[in-house]
């Protein structure tokens, strides 16, 4: 049978717009979420799950709104954010320059990298109790924990990033006789920036986790302590409201970071796709 004849037997229609939308839409997923929420509400209201720990979704939302508008939830949460921001900033401020130093100077790398790799696997919450004696039960202890947890991934990602920049960039700087510090500033740093920002983004999630943990363990204030307190007081709607708030905040922070990252290294994304097409 000729190819022409065969192809007549099996016409392939281009997918219609509706089919394309169906393929790509998350409608089924959104429906699933809504369904689960209804189940939650129903199971709580109709007593299918009998427990003070299982409030109906509506009660949780009501508590969330109340807590934000005139309750205790918002200030507690903001104090957590402020704490996390400071710890994260301190950790990054030390990690990024150190990452550069380790990548660029062999003596520094030989001296510091083994120690960093040695200390990295220690779970940060474990260092909190012993340090209570040294740093007290206050902000400095928690900031130290957050900064430490942030430090390791950021430093190692910066190090890896600087090492993996295209060698041709430094060769360009060299052939034009650009002095060392200028080259660092105008070539190495921008070239490594995509990697550094990726490291910063992943560390954000870890910083949030450690902030919550530190607040739970140290138990002074913040959303971590609030959640534990609500659990002890058996105030489930407030507890779940807190969890939802934390989730939303984490999601927003991540999106904001991604948007900022995209703007800051617009050139990297566009350059990649442009070269990918040309290649």
């Amino acid at each position: 049978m000729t190819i022409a004849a065969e192809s007549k037997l099996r016409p392939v229609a281009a997918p219609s717009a509706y089919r394309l939308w169906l393929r790509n839409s998350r409608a089924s997923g959104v429906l699933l979420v809504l369904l689960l929420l209804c189940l939650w509400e129903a199971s709580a209201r109709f007593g299918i799950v009998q427990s003070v720990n299982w409030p109906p979704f509506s009660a949780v939302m009501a508590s969330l709104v109340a807590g934000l508008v005139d309750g205790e939830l918002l200030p507690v949460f903001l104090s957590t954010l402020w704490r996390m921001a400071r710890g994260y900033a301190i950790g990054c401020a030390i990690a990024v320059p150190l990452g550069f130093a380790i990548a660029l100077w062999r003596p520094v790398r030989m001296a510091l990298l083994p120690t960093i790799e040695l200390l990295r696997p220690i779970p940060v919450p474990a260092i909190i109790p012993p340090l209570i004696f040294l740093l007290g039960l206050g902000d400095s202890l928690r900031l130290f924990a957050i900064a430490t947890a942030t430090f390791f991934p950021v430093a190692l990602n910066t190090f890896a990033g600087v090492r993996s920049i295209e060698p041709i960039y430094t060769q360009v700087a060299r052939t034009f006789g650009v002095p060392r510090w200028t080259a660092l500033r105008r070539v190495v740093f921008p070239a490594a920036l995509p990697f550094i920002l990726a490291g910063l983004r992943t560390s954000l999630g870890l910083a949030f986790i450690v902030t919550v943990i530190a607040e739970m363990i140290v138990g002074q204030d913040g959303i971590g302590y609030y959640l534990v307190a609500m659990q002890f007081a058996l105030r489930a709607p407030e507890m779940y409201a807190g969890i939802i708030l934390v989730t939303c905040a984490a999601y927003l922070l991540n999106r904001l970071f991604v948007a900022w990252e995209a703007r800051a290294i617009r050139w990297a994304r566009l350059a990649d796709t442009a070269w990918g097409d040309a290649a």
Partner: protein
Amino acid sequence: MPHLRERAIAILAGCLVPAVALLALEIAARSGAVNPTFLPPPSAILDSLRDVVLSGKFALPLGQTLLLLFIGYGIGAFAAICLGVLMGSSRAIYNLLEPLIELLRPLPKPALLPSLILFLGLGAKMEVTIVALGCFFPVLINTLQGVRAVEPTMINTARTFGHGTVAIWRRILLPASAPYILAGMRISLGLGLILVVTAEMISGTGGLGDAILTSQRSFLVKESYAWLVILAVLGLLLTWLFTRLEQRLAFWSGPQAR
């Protein structure tokens, strides 16, 4: 032999900072510059460590932590890989589950601890659950990334040779996405350790986390540091083992997602 000399210098340089730090701590603690009840000299910590190890006291907490970690990690990672492969292969399943996962992923898993305590109480069940939940997402995300990164050409080639779906999964999809999956598993290992220790501290029912907290509360400062060292060694060992595993399983790939 320049090679050996280089290695010797590297090892020496690497030990320099820890050695100096330990020495400084020793002097500071002994001379009273730092209150020795708050920060004991490393030599005292070493003594306490020797006691803990030789007396066999370390075995039970260490074993408990390790067991709970592995069970939680195993469940979480296995479920994540299965789901990741499913979602990566089927558009329909992906569309169905992705919104739910996008909602649950940003939640810092420790925030679930109070809720889990209300349901499961304090103890092993709660600890395993939080570890499983925490380890699930990084592995899932990375598995998805890995599966989607597999060249469709590879799969189509296998199809033209008549391989069935399961065979394709086993022999092409999994090996090709292995580097990504392993990277996700590496992240989850660290996270799992953090979660199990935290859960033990809050739960107070044994394990290394509990040992650290209990000894600190009983003002047995030296012992709390000793437990910390044991935990640090555990972390190091697990990381080293995992890196070796990664090298063996995905030796052919270059640096992947971190």
